């Protein structure tokens, strides 16, 4: 049993007890504890069940690399799954629950998978659940998903807030250990803008735990002096609980600050995502200890030697009375010595090396610890906790030499530099034979826009594994960064560390060397995803020679810890099996984030009312107050209809349509794009943009125009007004304003840069109201002295004047087929103008109408709508708009494309009207079927419905559609099979697309 020691714990505040619960049981820890240290101190070594075999699992590490100790944290609106107990700071009232077990952590039925493990090797699911296909969806997948997996997803809205923060710095330093601090001291003294981030709540990293001595002082003293010095520098920003999670192109980096995880509900943002632009990034991210692969290395109580040391020194946690240490290098001796000095027993140190002669081994022997060289662990005994280890010869096959009772095992397989940040943006690695690890290759760093490396690795993260080497590397790294940003480091006093002589490590990838297959099936590589030595060997035998393929086949390194402990061991086993060198096999790709970051931090402020900007016209509030239902159009909200009390939305639409046809309707058309195009070459420019001739349009006149892209496809339409000799005002669709403005600027800036044309997007400068219907003129005449008669202002003309006391421009244009004026007024007066029209309109039966009535009105007239009749594959000729395509112009955008064979083939789908035989309404998007089958054996389609409405004017369903050779087939009846369960297909007759007032008499009055 693990327990709390009565003394020690450098991070503990024993004066402040903290209460928390784990699986609804009450526990107690101290301020400064992590959830993992507090649980261990309370004797709770079993923390969860493994992903696939549901094996009992305990804490193995002490930091971000922890694969096992994942818990569900919090409750309700603050519940979050898969939180690492090792990086969760303890706070009063913390609630945690273990994961992946049923019915309970102690007794888990899923552990039957463990008994079946030999039948569940890598690739088992791929191989087994092949057929029948339907069984996947209804049987295999639900069962597998239930038995495999980690935490459950939260079901409530997140109660917390999140935010982003942008910062530009010259030098960004990741990692607040001694190397990061040393680099910050060097950089900070030059006045450079420096940001130093540390993922934990404490500065200094592991140097104090490992007993480093710097400048003759204990590491703790040197660290607090360094932090004090840095805090005095105004140009240096220090941040704990802030992890550099990703490095991206051009010196962009993301840091994940856990502002209030340790104080939930205190009104601060829970997480803050820093978006940092740095000239140079120094990674001082340290190194991670590797596990050893011996049978039973996943039993709760087996820990990394360094983690065990952390728990002992930082949190005064005894892992149990007796700890067996197993290692292939000197660092694990520090744990043995620390245990002994804390009054605990170390029955044996099993050193896999042929001899143990380093100074630390000597010290251990002096303390009376039995040190056995050339030995390893044959197997760990115990289920839910370690009971004993069986020792063996490392060079042998695992014959048991001795069984040693113990409660814990401290293992060390060597150290791997944390190269993730170096690698995120393309930094390459070198294999360091002596230390048996990958380290950054300084000759192949991630490159910036100048082709220069912008990431510099220092300290342990660079493979500088002693205190002295780490500090020297930090100074050198800081110098290099400063030189790149144009700052001179000058003379720097490098902190000096006491020498740390050590015996070279010896790589051990399998313990013992000749372990049997049965033992290899119990040697865990990836603890979180339950991948064993035997799985990687199987993958190699089955031909998965690439490390990337092996990763995906076995799922090694694919869990939430992304293989921080398993990657190197896994690829070493693979290399061995392939009889290849480790560097030849290579590593998988490290990708951001370093550890998972919250979804909330990525969203930042974008939730609730800030999720997306809602664009509002000046009359938005009026519509809202008058009961409008809304239709999103781009980011705008437009009134869809204005249902009255007790009226259905569809009844409201019918009423609005009839009223516009019979009396007068008012439409808020402010969202239409309005782009001013001005300059000596403006006429030439609009002639290129539109398919028809715009340069010849007389001042004072309007013309409907079509815009196509280079491929000839129709992309926008609208009315163009000639304002004066060199100015055209181009109206676009609501959703098209920004896109078309960008399109214009693209051509002007990139292709026709010598044309003298300026554009300005004036969409929001004006509120625009369409006054539509037979009484439109009469209504407006009560508000203005302007002559709006057919003679003074004929169809497709415009005029300036004053209406209702507001400066106005009146366009006599119609998208409804009725007598219609569209009136633009300054946006700030839009609401007053609208209200004046509503008031004066009372006498004429005026009513506002929404976008649905607008659609019905235009469909009755056979007018196309961009996005309904077009979908990016439709050319104007398909829509019977050949009349709007100039034959005289030499060129316009899309002209050449429209001459391609596919565009002129006679069987293109073309626009027609569709009248159902029974008067019903065709479903939008319904397909018409013809004879025969296509290449895929499906019924051949010969057309589709693009717009469909019930016309209140005609009292029947009307539709527009694109039909193969449509206009040549007037009167033909098409069949539209239904997909909504109705067995009978609907039948519709091909008719002219203009259903109402074919001669346009109503708008020309």
């Amino acid at each position, binding site marked *: 049993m693990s327990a709390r020691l009565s003394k020690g714990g450098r991070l503990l505040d024993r004066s402040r007890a903290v209460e928390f619960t784990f699986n609804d049981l009450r526990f107690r820890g101290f301020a400064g504890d992590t959830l993992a240290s507090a649980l261990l101190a309370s004797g709770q070594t079993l923390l969860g069940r493994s992903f696939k075999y549901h094996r009992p699992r305990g804490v193995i590490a002490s930091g971000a690399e922890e694969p096992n100790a994942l818990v569900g944290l919090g409750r309700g609106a603050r519940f979050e799954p898969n939180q690492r107990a090792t990086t969760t700071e303890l706070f009063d009232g913390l609630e945690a629950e273990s994961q992946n077990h049923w019915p309970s952590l102690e007794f888990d039925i899923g552990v039957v998978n463990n008994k079946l493990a030999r039948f569940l090797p890598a690739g088992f699911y791929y191989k087994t659940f092949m057929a029948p296909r339907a069984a996947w969806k209804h049987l295999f997948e639900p069962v597998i998903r239930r038995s495999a997996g980690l935490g459950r997803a939260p079901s409530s809205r997140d109660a917390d807030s999140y*935010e*982003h923060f942008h910062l530009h710095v010259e030098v960004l330093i990741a990692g607040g250990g001694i190397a990061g601090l040393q680099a910050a001291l060097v950089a900070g003294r030059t006045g450079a803008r420096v940001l130093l981030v540390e993922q934990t709540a404490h500065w200094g990293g592991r140097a104090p735990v490992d007993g480093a001595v710097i400048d003759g002082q204990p590491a703790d003293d040197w660290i607090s002096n360094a932090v004090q010095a840095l805090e005095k520098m105004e140009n240096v920003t220090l941040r704990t609980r802030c992890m550099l999670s990703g490095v991206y192109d051009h010196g962009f980096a993301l840091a994940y600050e856990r502002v209030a995880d340790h104080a939930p509900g205190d009104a601060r943002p829970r997480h803050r995502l820093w978006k940092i632009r740095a000239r140079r990034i120094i990674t001082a991210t340290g190194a991670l200890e590797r596990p050893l692969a011996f049978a039973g290395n996943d039993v709760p109580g087996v820990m990394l030697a360094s983690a065990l040391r952390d728990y002992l020194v930082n949190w005064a946690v005894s892992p149990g009375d007796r700890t067996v240490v197993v290692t292939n290098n000197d660092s694990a001796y520090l744990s043995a010595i620390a245990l002994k000095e804390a009054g605990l027993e170390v029955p044996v140190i099993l050193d896999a090396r042929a001899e143990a002669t380093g100074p630390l081994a000597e010290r251990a022997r002096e303390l009376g610890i039995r040190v056995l060289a050339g030995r390893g662990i044959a197997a760990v005994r115990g289920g839910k906790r370690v009971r004993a280890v069986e020792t063996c010869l490392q060079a042998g096959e695992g014959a048991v030499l001795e069984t040693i009772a113990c409660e814990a095992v401290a293992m060390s397989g060597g150290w791997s530099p944390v190269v993730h940040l170096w690698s995120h943006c393309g930094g390459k690695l070198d294999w360091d034979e002596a230390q048996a690890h990958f380290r950054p290759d300084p000759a192949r760093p991630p490159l910036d826009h100048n082709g220069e490396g912008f990431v510099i690795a220092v300290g342990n993260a660079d493979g500088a594994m002693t205190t002295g080497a780490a500090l020297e590397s930090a100074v050198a790294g800081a110098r290099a960064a400063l030189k790149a940003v144009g700052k001179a480091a000058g003379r720097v006093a490098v902190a000096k560390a006491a020498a740390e002589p050590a015996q070279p490590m010896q790589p051990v990838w399998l313990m013992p060397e000749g372990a049997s297959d049965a033992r290899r099936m119990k040697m865990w590589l990836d603890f979180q995803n339950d991948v064993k030595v035997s799985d990687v060997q199987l993958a190699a035998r089955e031909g998965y020679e690439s490390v990337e393929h092996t990763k995906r086949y076995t799922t090694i390194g694919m869990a939430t810890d992304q293989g921080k402990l398993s990657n190197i061991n896994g690829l070493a086993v693979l290399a061995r099996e392939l009889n290849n060198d480790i560097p030849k096999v290579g590593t998988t790709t490290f990708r951001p984030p370093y550890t998972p970051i919250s979804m909330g931090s990525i969203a*930042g402020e974008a939730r609730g009312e800030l999720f997306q900007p809602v664009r509002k016209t000046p009359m938005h509030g009026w519509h809202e107050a008058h009961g409008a239902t809304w239709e999103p159009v781009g980011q*705008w909200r437009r009134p869809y209809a204005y249902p009255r009390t007790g009226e259905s939305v569809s009844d409201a639409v019918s009423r609005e349509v009839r009223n516009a046809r019979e009396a007068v309707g008012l439409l808020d058309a402010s969202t239409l794009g309005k782009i001013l195009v001005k300059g000596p070459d403006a006429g030439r420019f609009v002639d290129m943009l539109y398919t028809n001739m715009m340069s010849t349009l007389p001042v004072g006149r309007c013309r409907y125009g079509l815009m196509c892209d280079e491929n000839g496809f129709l992309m926008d339409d609208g009315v163009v007004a000639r304002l004066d000799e060199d100015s055209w005002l181009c109206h676009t669709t609501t959703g098209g304003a920004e896109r078309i403005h960008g399109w214009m600027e693209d051509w002007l800036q990139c292709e026709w840069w010598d044309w003298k044309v*300026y554009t300005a997007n004036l969409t929001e*400068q004006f509120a625009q109201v369409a006054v539509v219907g037979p009484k439109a003129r009469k209504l407006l005449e009560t508000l203005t002295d302007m002559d709006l008669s057919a003679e003074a202002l004929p169809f497709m003309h415009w005029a300036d004047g004053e209406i209702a006391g507001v400066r106005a421009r009146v366009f006599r244009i119609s998208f409804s087929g009725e007598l219609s004026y569209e009136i633009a007024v300054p946006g700030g007066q839009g609401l007053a103008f609208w209200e004046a029209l509503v008031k004066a309109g009372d006498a004429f039966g005026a009513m506002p109408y929404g976008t649905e009535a607008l659609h019905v009105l235009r469909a009755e007239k056979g007018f196309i709508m961009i996005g309904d009749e077009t979908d990016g594959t439709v050319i104007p000729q398909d829509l019977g708009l050949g009349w709007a395509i100039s034959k005289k112009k030499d060129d316009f955008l899309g002209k050449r494309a429209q001459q391609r064979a596919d565009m002129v083939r006679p069987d293109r789908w073309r626009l027609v009207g569709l009248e159902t035989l029974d008067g019903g309404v065709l479903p939008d998007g319904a397909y018409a079927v013809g004879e025969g089958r296509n290449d895929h054996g499906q019924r051949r389609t010969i057309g589709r419905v693009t717009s469909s409405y019930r016309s209140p004017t005609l009292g029947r369903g009307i539709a527009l559609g694109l039909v193969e050779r449509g206009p040549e087939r007037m009167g033909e009846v098409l069949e539209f099979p239904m997909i909504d369960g109705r067995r009978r297909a609907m039948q519709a007759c091909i008719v002219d697309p203009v259903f109402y007032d074919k001669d346009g008499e109503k708008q020309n009055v």
Partner: protein
Amino acid sequence: MSDAALARISRETGRAMITLRGDLASRPLASAVKRAVGQPVPGPRAILGDDDRAVAWMSPDELLILCPRGEAAGVSAGLSKALQGSFHLVADVSDARAVFRIRGRGWREVLAKLTPADLSPAAFGEGELRRTRLAQVAAAFWTGGRDEATLVCFASVADYVQALLENAARPESAVGVL
């Protein structure tokens, strides 16, 4: 809003804005600008003038003229007249814009939560203007003094921008860096 907010956010309505596009190096344009607001043509990312009349650099061929609302028509007409015959564009965009004042010591942090622009005092001082992005919309802002900034966005998203700024100024959300 609480007094402890990082900054106070207020809307302003008295300002007119006129877009002027043309050859910024030309003498007629410079003298037209001088007549309009009493300032020379500003350099890149700069704004010259005071709360009443100012001219801001928007792009290599675009300026923004600021003046009191009542003077907009006169200033527009004056610019058009002065530049008649030369290649240019003048457009009143006052109604297309919304203007916010952000007052208080935390204004830099409020903006830095929402825009990628560098807001450190070294990079963004008095007379500097940035045309950039504020969360999901376009915006421009400048600072006239130590503890305040002025921000311009499109009128249609004024409510969104106001809510963004107020949210970013919540008293509990101080970053303590800028």
